Every structure is written in structure tokens, then in C-alpha cells.
């Protein structure tokens, strides 16, 4: 067989992943840690000391920032896990509901965090759509009231924003996990033993799929604890969450803040690590309690109301998300729109007609970077999967962990250190660096999306090609890739969406000089013209949607006469 060639391919991929992904993350963490303890030659700091930490603890609002971070991180993760489980239990086994839920939730997976957040801010703010809908007849407001519904000090609007993104993500992960266990049979067996559908789901099925979605849950937890773009737009502003606070310090005019900011970045990693530890501990306790509960054999608990609440809350969240995205579009075409009118009094194409004002260049930048990052990621993913095939090996646990690594380590914790390390070895911070920074986060999603369809390909089909004399490369080009075209394009669309949504890698690795739709939208979101912000956010949301549409349409066009590939296995 082709074990030797397989080994060479695998070594190349492993080297690429280690040198391109793991090493930079480690180097970034290392530089951050050095700066956290006083060593940052770029600003002439060269002595080990604890001063950055003392300075950090003394910064105004530090304690509140940490508390907010924990509250938002744990709160949003727990709620989204509950909602996603409830929704799964509610619709599991009902085929039409399942297909419909997937269709309704998928767009929110595609929508970039920043665009969604900007839309939500339009929706929830005191002068937003909800307030306009209720004014003045119900509220008596003729002017926007002076209350903080967005950027509220408790972070509720930030939690809502995170939920709209995370519930669909966890839901789809659970749906994928469900295909790996004989869920239908267990459901039937459980109901035959006298348990209601929802109860079987909670007692029998959830414990089986939870281990399969544990890594995605940790990704959600890590993300919620360290999110920056959404937190800038929706989160508390004074003091903000720790991740936002440290981003401000990193970009403050006062370079003396770089050291405490690095300390905060290190602290951010520790927080995520501890949070995962605490989560694991809680998992253990929940498992024990769950076992006792299952042993009691109770069938009487009514799970219906809980599931109904989960369904209703999720529905409300998705409605808010849809309105948020719609409000972006309306604002981008609005001209005069005074409170409390529900729609603008006059419309205009003004904001759209002037790409030279900035959005044209930002659009090109987002598109180009996304395209490059996606192509590179797809290439590495295919090389990785093909290497596994040729070696005839299943993926080992540490390799799976390697793929998830960039998603588990908080971005804020290593990106600044990474830009320092890059400058240290003479690599400037420019477009190429930004593209590579995006690949770091695009690749894991592409890999996760492509692995299952790749493995589901009938091995005997590939074996047939071999018996007909086709060598490994011809099997790849002429058989595997064409058959897997649809899932490859879907993985690419997901990767492109991830790239378009990236905020921090663009900011830190581009040294503030690379302006994408995302960085511009976040910058403009604080207090500038809503019409202009609307244009940026609409474009930012449109790019991923267009890529999903293309991923859906292209294989259907190419294979319109191939029933075996059309829909069925796609």
C-alpha cells in the first residue's frame, strides 16, 4: 500500500500545523507572559518585576471587570446549553420540526458577531425599534428615554447577543452528535418503559451526547469569557469586561499600560483555564446527582413546561436576531428617521453610493483576506484528511485537541504577544500576517465541518478506483474531491464566514493598519452615523450569506444531472 507516501504527507501536515499554529500560540503566550512580568524590550522594559500586576490590580474598575467577565461567560454558556438542549428535546424525532429548526437557526450561525451586535444595539437601544414600537402610545415617550438598555452595567444585552450566536451553534453540534448514537431506538425503548419523550431525552439521551459536544461547549465558554467585538458594542462600558478593558489598555496612548494589559491577558488565560476546571468539576457533580435521579426511576416529572419555555425563549431570541439584521438594512437606506417613527420618514441611497468613503476598500479587504484564508485552510484540511486515509489511521485524541487548540485559547491572551514575537523575528505586521492569523481560526472550523462527510465517503468506491488502476493522486482528484464537492464548499463557506467575522486578529496582527468591514464596523459603532454603520454591518453580514448561498448553489448546478449527488448525500 502507500504507507510511505502517506507518512510523508502526514509529516508535512503535522509540521505545518505545529509550526504554523501551535508554535505561534505558544510564542504569543510566552511573549505575553514575559510582558506581564515586566519584560517588553520594545518599550525599554527589561527587568523582571511584579509591578505590572500591582498596577493591574490598582486600575479603576478592575475587580468589577473580572466579576462581569465571569458573570457573562458562565451565564451565557449555561443558558445557551440549557436552551439548546431544551430545543433538541422538543423537536427530536419530529422530522419536519428538525429540518425547519435547522433552516431557521443556520443564518444566525453565519451572521458575524459584530453585525448582529450592531443590529441588536439598533433594536434594543432607548431610541431603537422596540422602544419605537411601544411609543408613544404605551410608554408616553416622545423622546428617547435616558435608560441604559444597551451597554447596561449588568451585561444583559451582551448576554442576549451571545445567546443568539451560541444557541444555534450548540444546537447544530447536538444534532450532529445525535447521529452518532442510536437515539431513535433509545427514545422508543424509554417511552415503552413509561417515560415521557422529554424525560427520556434528559435522562437517557443528553448524557450520551454531552461527551460528544464537550469540546464545543468549552469553545463557547472560552469565547464568552473573552469576547471583544460584541462586548465593545453591547457590553457594559464603564467598567467593561476584562477582555474589552485590556484591548483599550493595549491601544491606549499611554504605553505604560502595555505591561498591566499583558498581565490582564495572562490572567484571561488563567480565568479560562480555571473556568474549564470548574466546569469539569460541576460536570462530575451533575453526573452523580443525575445517576441518583435516574435510579429513583421517577416518571412523573413533567418536562413539558420546561421544554416549552426553552422553545419560546429561543424563538424570541431568534426573532430579535432577525429584527436586528433587518434593522441594519433599514438604517443603511434611511435618511430622516426621528423618534418615535417606526420607519424612516425619508429614504436615501446616499450611504451606499459612496464606496470611496471607505466601505469599498474595507469590503475588498474583507473579501480578499477571507478568500485567501479559506483557500489555505481548505488545502491544509484536505491534506490532513488525505494523509489519514493513506496511512489508514483514525485520528488520535491529541490530534483532535490540536485542531481545537486555537479555539480554546482566548484570542486576547496571545494575539498581542504574538504580534510582539512576529516583530521580534523580523516579520512585519501586515496583510500576509493577518491572513495567516485568520487561518489560525478558520482552519479548525473547516476541519470540523469537513471531517464527518470525508469519513462518510464509501471506502469501497475509492477501492474500486484503485482496482481500475488509479493511483492515490488520481483517486483524490478524480473520485474523492468531485464526490465531496458539496461538503467541501460548505466547509469553505463556514471558513469564509469565520474569517469575515474576525476582529482581534485583524486589529492586533495588522497593527491597526488593515481596515476590514469588521474592524471598521466596530470602530464606527460607538456613536457615529447609524446610516454609515448600517452599510458596513449589512455588507459584513452579506458576505457570509453570499458564500453559503454559493456553496448551496454551485454543486447543484454542476451536478444537476446527477441524482446520486444532488441532495441525497450532499
Amino acid at each position, binding site marked *: 500500500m502507500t504507507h510511505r507516501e502517506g507518512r510523508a504527507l502526514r509529516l508535512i501536515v503535522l509540521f505545518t500545523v505545529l509550526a504554523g499554529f501551535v508554535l505561534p500560540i505558544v510564542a504569543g503566550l510566552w511573549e505575553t507572559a514575559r510582558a506581564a512580568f515586566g519584560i517588553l524590550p520594545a518599550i525599554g522594559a527589561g527587568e523582571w518585576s511584579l509591578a505590572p500586576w500591582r498596577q493591574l490590580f490598582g486600575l479603576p474598575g478592575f475587580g468589577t471587570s473580572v466579576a462581569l467577565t465571569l458573570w457573562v461567560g458562565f451565564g451565557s454558556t449555561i443558558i445557551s446549553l440549557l436552551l439548546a438542549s431544551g430545543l433538541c428535546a422538543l423537536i427530536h424525532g419530529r422530522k419536519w420540526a428538525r429540518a425547519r429548526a435547522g433552516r431557521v437557526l443556520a443564518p444566525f450561525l453565519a451572521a458575524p458577531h459584530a453585525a448582529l451586535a450592531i443590529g441588536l444595539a439598533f433594536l434594543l437601544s432607548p431610541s431603537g425599534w422596540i422602544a419605537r414600537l411601544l411609543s408613544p402610545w404605551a410608554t408616553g415617550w416622545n423622546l428617547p428615554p435616558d435608560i441604559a438598555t444597551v451597554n447596561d452595567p449588568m451585561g444583559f444585552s451582551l448576554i442576549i447577543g451571545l445567546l443568539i450566536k451560541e444557541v444555534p451553534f450548540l444546537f447544530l453540534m447536538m444534532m450532529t452528535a445525535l447521529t452518532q448514537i442510536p437515539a431513535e431506538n433509545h427514545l422508543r425503548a424509554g417511552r415503552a418503559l413509561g417515560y415521557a419523550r422529554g424525560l427520556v431525552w434528559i435522562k437517557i439521551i443528553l448524557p450520551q451526547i454531552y461527551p460528544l459536544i464537550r469540546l464545543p461547549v468549552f469553545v463557547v465558554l472560552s469565547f464568552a469569557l473573552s469576547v471583544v467585538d460584541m462586548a465593545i458594542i453591547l457590553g457594559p462600558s464603564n467598567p467593561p469586561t476584562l477582555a474589552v478593558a485590556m484591548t483599550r489598555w493595549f491601544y491606549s496612548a499611554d504605553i505604560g499600560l502595555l505591561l498591566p494589559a499583558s498581565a490582564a491577558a495572562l490572567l484571561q488565560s488563567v480565568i479560562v483555564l480555571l473556568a474549564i476546571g470548574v466546569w469539569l468539576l460541576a460536570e462530575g457533580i451533575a453526573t452523580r446527582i443525575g445517576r441518583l435521579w435516574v435510579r429513583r426511576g421517577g416518571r412523573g416529572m413533567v418536562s413539558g413546561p420546561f421544554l416549552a419555555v426553552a422553545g419560546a425563549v429561543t424563538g424570541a431570541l431568534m426573532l430579535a436576531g432577525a429584527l436586528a439584521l433587518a434593522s441594519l438594512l433599514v438604517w443603511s437606506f434611511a435618511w430622516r428617521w426621528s423618534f418615535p417613527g417606526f420607519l424612516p420618514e425619508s429614504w436615501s441611497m446616499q450611504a451606499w453610493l459612496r464606496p470611496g468613503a471607505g466601505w469599498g476598500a474595507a469590503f475588498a479587504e474583507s473579501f480578499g483576506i477571507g478568500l485567501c484564508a479559506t483557500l489555505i485552510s481548505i488545502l491544509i484540511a484536505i491534506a490532513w484528511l488525505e494523509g489519514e486515509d493513506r496511512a*489508514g489511521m483514525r485520528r488520535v485524541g491529541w490530534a483532535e485537541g490540536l485542531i481545537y487548540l486555537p479555539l480554546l485559547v482566548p484570542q486576547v491572551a496571545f494575539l498581542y504577544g504574538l504580534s510582539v514575537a512576529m516583530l521580534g523575528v523580523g516579520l512585519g505586521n501586515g496583510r500576509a500576517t493577518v491572513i495567516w492569523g485568520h487561518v489560525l481560526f478558520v482552519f479548525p472550523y473547516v476541519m470540523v465541518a469537513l471531517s464527518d462527510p470525508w469519513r462518510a465517503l464509501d471506502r469501497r468506491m475509492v477501492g474500486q478506483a484503485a*482496482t481500475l488502476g488509479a493511483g492515490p493522486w488520481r483517486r483524490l482528484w478524480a473520485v474523492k474531491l468531485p464526490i465531496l464537492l458539496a461538503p467541501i464548499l460548505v466547509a469553505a463557506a463556514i471558513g469564509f464566514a469565520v474569517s469575515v467575522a474576525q476582529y482581534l486578529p485583524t486589529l492586533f496582527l495588522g497593527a491597526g493598519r488593515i481596515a476590514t468591514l469588521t474592524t471598521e464596523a466596530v470602530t464606527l459603532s460607538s456613536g457615529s452615523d447609524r446610516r454609515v454603520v448600517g452599510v458596513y454591518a449589512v455588507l459584513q453580514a452579506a458576505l457570509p450569506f453570499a458564500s453559503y448561498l454559493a456553496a448551496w448553489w454551485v454543486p447543484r448546478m454542476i451536478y444537476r444531472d*446527477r441524482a446520486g449527488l444532488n441532495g441525497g448525500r450532499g
Partner: protein
Amino acid sequence: MSLELEGVVIRAARSDRPLFAPLTLTVAPGEVATVMGPSGIGKSTLVDFIGGHLSAGFAPQGRVRLDGREVTGLPAEARRIGILFQDALLFPHLSVGDNLAFGLARRIRQAGPRRMAVEAALAEAGLEGFGDRDPATLSGGQLGRVALMRTLLAEPRALLLDEPFSKLDPDRRRQMRDFVFDHVRGRNIPVLMVSHDAEDAAAAGGQILRLSELAN
């Protein structure tokens, strides 16, 4: 040309116990030999081993020789051993004709003769004019005939049949069996069939070997 198996023993990589007793067998050119055995004994694994498709999870011993030349270490694509399964396994992204062209040996170079070879194979399968069809629109019997033609166009030096007829109903089964055996006998190559069906084995007309579990 003959296909020889010598002392073939296959065990799962993590197990000490071979799947079946050591197998030695010579199939003459033009003969259709049958290896029989209960399901689960490893008939398909044997086919994978001979064809060069065994996954890393198995540890094989023994030799496979084709016409006196050992092929045991060669990759599947270099062995030129065709395999037919009960599923036709036509490539879903290619038309019926392109599936055949994929199989057609590279010996024929020019486009014209290649197209003619494909047309001739279609005619032989009773499928004139089916070249542009989507494989998904063919019936089970038609798919089976195309799969056989695709395999034969690659000019294999031996052919393996892995339960090739087990999905068909009795009538179709007989037709398909006759079609396959007629065509392979004409090529004068050794054919090895694995099956659990005595009627298939009798129709094949060659030697019949029973795989047995290893006595403790």
C-alpha cells in the same frame, strides 16, 4: 495466468486468533473458484487482502501470486486485480460512459478508439445509448452489468467477486450470474468468488473451498 494463494492467515491487529485456518489455493485461468463460509468469518477481509485494500487494523500473513509473480507488497492500483461487490459502486459524479472510460486501460490512447471501446462495452451490456445517462437512473441489473464492464475494460489479470449476486431476487440472480460468468470465462483470467450461497458456487463450476474456523 493463474492466481495463487499460499498460507494466507489474517488476524485482527489486536487479536492473536486468525479469522480462519491457513488458506492455500491455486485458481487456473478461465476457472471460477468459490470460497464459501458462514458470514462473519472474514470472506470480505480475504478479498480485501488479495486486492490490496486491507485496512491497517489487520495483520496478514502469506503470499498472493499472479502468474508466478508475487503481488503481496504492491499497492492495489498496481496489482490489476478487479473486484465486484453486490453494490455497483459507480462513481456518482460521472456519467455511465465516463465511468467506463475511467476504467478503460490506458493502453488505448486516442480519444476516438477510447470512445469506441466504451460504446462497444455498452453494447455488450445491452445498454446502447446509455453513455450520457446518470448512474442514479439505472436499475439494479443495469448497474451490475456496467460495473462488470468497467472492471473488464481495465483489463484485470484476475477478478474477485464478493457476494456479487446476493442483493438480487432469484430470477435476476440467475440472469446476472450467467452474464458475469459468460463474460469472465471468455477472458481466460482466474476468478475467485466468495459467497455463502451453494447455488452460486455450483453455477461457477470451479473448485469449491470452505473457510473454517481454526480449531482450538
